């Protein structure tokens, strides 16, 4: 992780294809290192003469690393690029620029065939347990699919392994022959997790793993993810919009806004002493389950909180320089002309702001 990065978004280091191993940025102690990761989606017009008329700058120059056994949380509002980042890490989306180093291998531009052995080690948990399981396949087929694709077990061995996996995630192994529709949302998410665990991956990227679930089921799945991490020594990258869930499960937290990484710190640091104004506002916007009373004249009391106005701007045409300046209460002229660099202060706490809080 570089402490200070160059301030021009979008014009960051382009990865050099053909580098077989990590190039020094990945020290021995990180499992995943992402450097200058960028994804721009072209916006096309025309039917016969397709031409790009603009770019959605979904992710712009994002860098972070994840140590083995660690959980990194990525938070942000919709459109901040957190899902695109997750998809680039598992190579479902081709990065425009930047570099992804996994376990010493540069996987940024690996071809499908070369990627296949590594797929065993990087797996993904999807958000919606209803659309991520094939309704026409039995649980046995779904959870056993990774074994068949990777040809690592015999048919007989697959059945036994699947039953072990079902037991591991807290499902009845007898339910091997059932179809997804026979399960509730929480149980389906467990099936998805069992499938993810089939090949004993090192890294699991979970994109909103609990947001589609009810509160009580959410807690069960969060506890399950933690148990599995302790038991199997997994490393997680967890994408979520819910700040309280992120605080509960993650060791380090990255905050994204409109494709930029604005803050990255240890969990306790970030929640106790957030430095970027966006993080401060985000934390203060979370409604807390502590009742608010009424004042003597019957008006409802209101919590002290920072209230951001307006919506997140479109990533099609993001504000120049600091992308948060349009909604920031601390913004000055420099914020409109110069992008703030990601500065590390105190050690381990990165924030990209000209006028950070708690400094």
């Amino acid at each position, binding site marked *: 992780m570089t402490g200070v990065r160059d301030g021009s978004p979008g014009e960051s280091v382009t990865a050099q294809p053909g580098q077989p191993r990590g190039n020094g940025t990945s020290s021995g102690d990180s499992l995943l290192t992402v450097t200058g990761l960028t994804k721009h989606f072209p916006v096309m017009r025309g039917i016969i003469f397709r031409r790009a008329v603009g770019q959605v700058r979904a992710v712009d120059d994002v860098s972070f690393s994840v140590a083995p056994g660690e959980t990194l949380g990525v938070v942000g509002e919709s459109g901040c690029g957190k899902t695109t980042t997750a998809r680039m890490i598992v190579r479902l989306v081709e990065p425009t620029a930047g570099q992804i180093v996994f376990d010493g291998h540069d996987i940024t531009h690996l071809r499908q065939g070369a990627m296949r052995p590594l797929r065993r080690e990087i797996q993904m948990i999807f958000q919606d347990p209803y659309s991520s399981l094939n309704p026409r396949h039995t649980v046995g087929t779904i959870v056993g699919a990774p074994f068949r694709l990777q040809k690592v077990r015999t048919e007989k061995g697959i059945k036994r392994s699947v039953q072990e996996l079902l037991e591991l995630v807290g499902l009845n192994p007898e339910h091997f022959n059932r179809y997804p529709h026979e399960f509730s949302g929480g149980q389906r998410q467990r099936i998805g997790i069992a499938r993810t665990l089939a090949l004993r991956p090192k890294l699991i990227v979970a994109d909103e793993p609990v947001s589609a679930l009810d509160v009580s089921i959410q*807690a*069960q799945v969060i506890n399950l993810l*933690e148990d599995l991490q302790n038991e199997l020594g997994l490393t997680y990258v967890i994408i979520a919009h819910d700040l309280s869930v992120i*605080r509960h499960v993650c060791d380090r937290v990255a905050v994204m806004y409109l494709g930029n990484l604005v803050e990255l710190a240890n969990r306790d640091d970030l929640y106790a002493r957030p430095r970027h104004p966006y993080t401060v506002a985000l934390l203060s916007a979370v*409604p807390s389950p502590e009742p608010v009373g009424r004042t003597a004249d019957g008006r409802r009391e209101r919590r002290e909180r920072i209230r951001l106005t307006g919506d997140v701007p479109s990533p099609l045409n993001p504000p120049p320089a600091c992308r948060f300046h349009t909604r920031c209460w601390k913004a000055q002229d420099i914020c409109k002309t110069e992008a703030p660099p990601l500065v590390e202060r105190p050690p381990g706490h990165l924030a990209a702001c000209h006028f950070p809080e708690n400094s």
Partner: protein
Amino acid sequence: MAGGESPAAEPQPGGRLPRLRARGRGSREPAVHAADGAAGESSPSAMLDVRDLHIHFPTDDGLVKAVDGLSFTLDRGRTLGIVGESGSGKSVTSLGILGLYNTGNARMSGKIYLSGEDLVAADQARVRELRGSKMAMIFQDPLSSLHPYYTVGNQIAEAYLIHNKVSKKAARSHAIDLLKRVGIPQAESRIDDYPHQFSGGMRQRAMIAMALSCDPELLIADEPTTALDVTVQAQILDLISDLQQEYHSAVIIITHDLGVVAELADDILVMYAGRVAEYGSSEDVFLRPGHPYTWGLLGSMPRLDRTRVDRLLSIRGTPPSLINVPAGCPFNPRCDYAARTNGRSEKEVPALRQVGPGHLVACHLTTDEQRRIWAERDKVAS
């Protein structure tokens, strides 16, 4: 709920409201039928008075008892939060109040008095007249609840035109006023935009403007902020709270998010499997909850306002199917404390019982036991 009427209040022959429904096993059925037979008179004080509401859906697999004996009252200027997981009957309750179920596919019984008028017995035309003018709804997903072919202004003015004898021009200027009131900039030009030209937060604002177009007495918001980002959610919650104070309407807010409820509601109704598990002021429910399900909900959510716990106290199992609701207390298969009731949990449906002023809990545990267990759990959590 002003005046402290309980949600389970039922009319007595004398017309007085008892604070508490008659106790005893199976009290739900006889008590209510007796009351219905007596007069069917309404309580004059409450603006909305729901009594022993049942909404059942016959299906090929069996009878789905989505709402099974729900009672509560609500006054103008007050906010009731209905909390529960999916399948607890909270949305069905709101659609039932609005009269959006027809007799062909749903069986409704009980009473819903809106300003003294029973909506369950009223004919379709009358409910239709009231819907939009005296009661209105804010739906969860503004993108699918707004019509993509009509401009936002058109959709806001529609209800106003139907319920009031005004010119199109007047309705349009009314719509502009409403858009301004809900905080949409350049309302004069944005009124001709289509929903897709609005952002998520603005669509929800437009939905709120639509609901307010006829100055309803009752506003039902079904998960109004679930589809929104957290910073936009805070804006919408503030807006709903401000508008309620301005219009002095009664608001029912339905959500699974206990944080949202704490922010808005005066009173909270916790539903489980179509029934009331707990009802009380928001202080009661958040600070002195008495029902194991409420404890479970509170223990299941990671909280930013407390120190981080190592493990969430989740509820085991899954919510029951509404076709086969467990016998006895519907929560008993998931309850950690069912064993303490000497088997009553499996056999008897617990009646709503008063554990404090205006605080009702449907649980077989004694009030002392409830207090003791909650104190222990609260200590672990904080």
